[in-house]
């Protein structure tokens, strides 16, 4: 199971806006194996979605990859043309979007939208009539798979006739139509209420094992990640500031930003009057990013060097690394002590 599925190396992606170049992704490297569930966490604008959209070639105008490579399932994604992307999207990699209320086309039936995905990537070469029959049967199968009752009836319904949770299930059905190798879930539960959230996440994990796919879970909800993911990438201002296994991130966070994030989640064991600790300050202006560590202006342990120079990554284990001068200092002192 340790075959590499996705290998992003030193990816740089910028949006060329009239106000100037916005470096949305700055030297991102992510490696994912088959069957992995990777969580990408970070606040709005940190580059979570941009990273995953880049894998699908969905980067919105005026964004462009300016450096680095993306290898996915044998494709060199960074060199692919629109035509090649079209073949790959929906077949090898699928995505579920945040808002199921607006992500389905309101004027076509559920059946039409699921079948479209199946028909687009069909290679059986059957005559049209049989193909349509086959697609319909597959659509019913998919709806049953995602736990929608009366699938035959639902096929003829329009998105506005379904609830939010149902629509997200339909989105999942569309995404799974061609049994993709990788499913990108872009905050799939943010727009749903809490009970439905749990159901949808459960469903995704269940289907992951059934189909044998990998999942990238984009979220700003650490609770979601802790339940689902094996590995977590914490992003801030277009950089991965810390990467590690779920245990490493939750029990042994190294970056000040990760620590801040963990402090801002409410715990059931907390005393009643205990206050949550927010991370003070505002996200960086991506048009004029700071020279040093992007988190430095909000960091309580900021040092002089943090403002001047971007910290390199420090490895703590095979899977755990972070970019912070504080940990560099620890390493430095440790080495001093050894000598």
């Amino acid at each position: 199971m340790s075959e590499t599925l996705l290998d992003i190396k030193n990816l740089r992606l910028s949006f060329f806006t009239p106000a100037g170049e916005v470096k949305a992704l700055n030297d991102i490297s992510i490696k994912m194996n088959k069957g992995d569930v990777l969580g990408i966490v970070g606040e709005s604008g940190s580059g979570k979605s941009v990273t995953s959209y880049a894998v699908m070639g969905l980067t919105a105008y005026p964004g462009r990859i300016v450096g680095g490579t993306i290898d996915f399932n044998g494709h060199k994604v960074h060199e692919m043309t629109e035509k090649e992307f079209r073949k790959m999207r929906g077949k090898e990699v699928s995505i579920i979007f945040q808002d199921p209320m607006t992500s389905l086309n309101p004027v076509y039936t559920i059946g039409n939208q699921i079948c479209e995905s199946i028909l687009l990537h069909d290679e059986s070469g059957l005559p049209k009539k049989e193909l349509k029959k086959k697609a319909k049967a597959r659509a019913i199968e998919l709806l049953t798979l995602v736990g929608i009752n009366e699938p035959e009836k639902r096929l003829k319904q329009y998105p506005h006739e379904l609830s939010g949770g149902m629509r997200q299930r339909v989105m999942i059905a569309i995404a799974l139509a061609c049994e993709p190798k990788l499913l990108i879930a872009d905050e799939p539960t943010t727009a749903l209420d809490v009970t439905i959230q749990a159901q949808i996440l459960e469903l995704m994990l269940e289907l992951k094992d059934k189909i044998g796919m990998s999942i990238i879970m984009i979220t700003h909800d650490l609770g979601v990640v802790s339940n689902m993911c094996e590995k977590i990438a914490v992003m801030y201002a277009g950089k991965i500031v810390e990467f590690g296994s779920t245990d490493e991130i939750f029990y042994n966070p190294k970056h000040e930003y990760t620590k801040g994030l963990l402090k801002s989640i409410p715990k059931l064991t907390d005393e009643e009057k205990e206050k949550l600790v927010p991370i003070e300050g505002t996200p960086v202006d991506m048009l004029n990013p700071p020279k040093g560590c992007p988190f430095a202006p909000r960091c309580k342990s900021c040092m002089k060097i943090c403002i001047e120079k971007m910290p390199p990554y420090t490895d703590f284990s095979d899977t755990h690394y972070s970019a912070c001068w504080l940990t560099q200092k620890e390493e430095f002192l440790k080495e001093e002590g050894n000598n």
Partner: protein
Amino acid sequence: MTKYIIKRIALGLLTVFIVATLTFFLMRLVPGGPFLSEKTPSAATLKALEEKYHFNEPLSVQYRIYMENLVKGDFGVSMKRKGTTVNDIIAKGFPVSARIGGLSILISFCIGVPIGTYAAYKRGKFIDKIIMFFATCGIAVPSFVVSTILLIVFSGWLGWFPSFGLTTPLHYVMPVTALCVYPTAYISRLMRSSMLDVLGQDYMRTAKAKGVGQFSSLFKHALRNSILPVVTYLGPLLAYTVVGSFVIEKIFNIPGLGRDFISSITSRDYPVIMGTTVFLALLLVAINVVVDIVYKIIDPRIKLK
């Protein structure tokens, strides 16, 4: 659905009744009359005429008589063109105007929609700016100017098309073109702005993520969502256009209904004024019902109640 249509037709007939009533009384409030001209007829003739057309009776009686005939489908007899019934005038003029009007609306729709879509797809690019420049010109230039230019160039200088009448297919080219310009320009602008809105929607991103191609994404996923404003505009426009354009029919000397409409007003030909107005109202009401049904077909979220 059936209940809705019945309700709409009933409401429509009420509208037509109100239009007819208002027109009847407003028309009579305007000074002048059908028998007044430079050569005033003798008192005896006038009296005879007034009796013939019930002008000596009180207005309420005249109104009752007119309405009774209207319900029977009889629009009366023209006061200016002897022996011609209003039904005849409509039956003769409407097909001519409808052919020209219908053709021009069809062409406007077929050109305006793809052009607007294309401009939206290429938003901000040079081609978009070119299209929008011509669309703005098309809206700003009145049809009589377009007609005149067409006449000078294609009839006068080049001699390609006949300048008046409506006998051969060649005769249709210039009037239809002149009538097309404004709606085409307007539809392409409407289509562009509505399309731009739709292209930014989440479901367009979903379509792309499914692997849907550019063409299918535009013409399957986006078009059906963005065409509603065009349908809204097209309904009433169609009604107004098929009853004829006074300007175009005058310039190209086409025997359409549009000319009768205007000339009946200047000559106070009461039955013709009433007839053409009620006819237009009927048409508008009918087209609006059709537009509502088309809405429902295009967008299933719309509920007809």
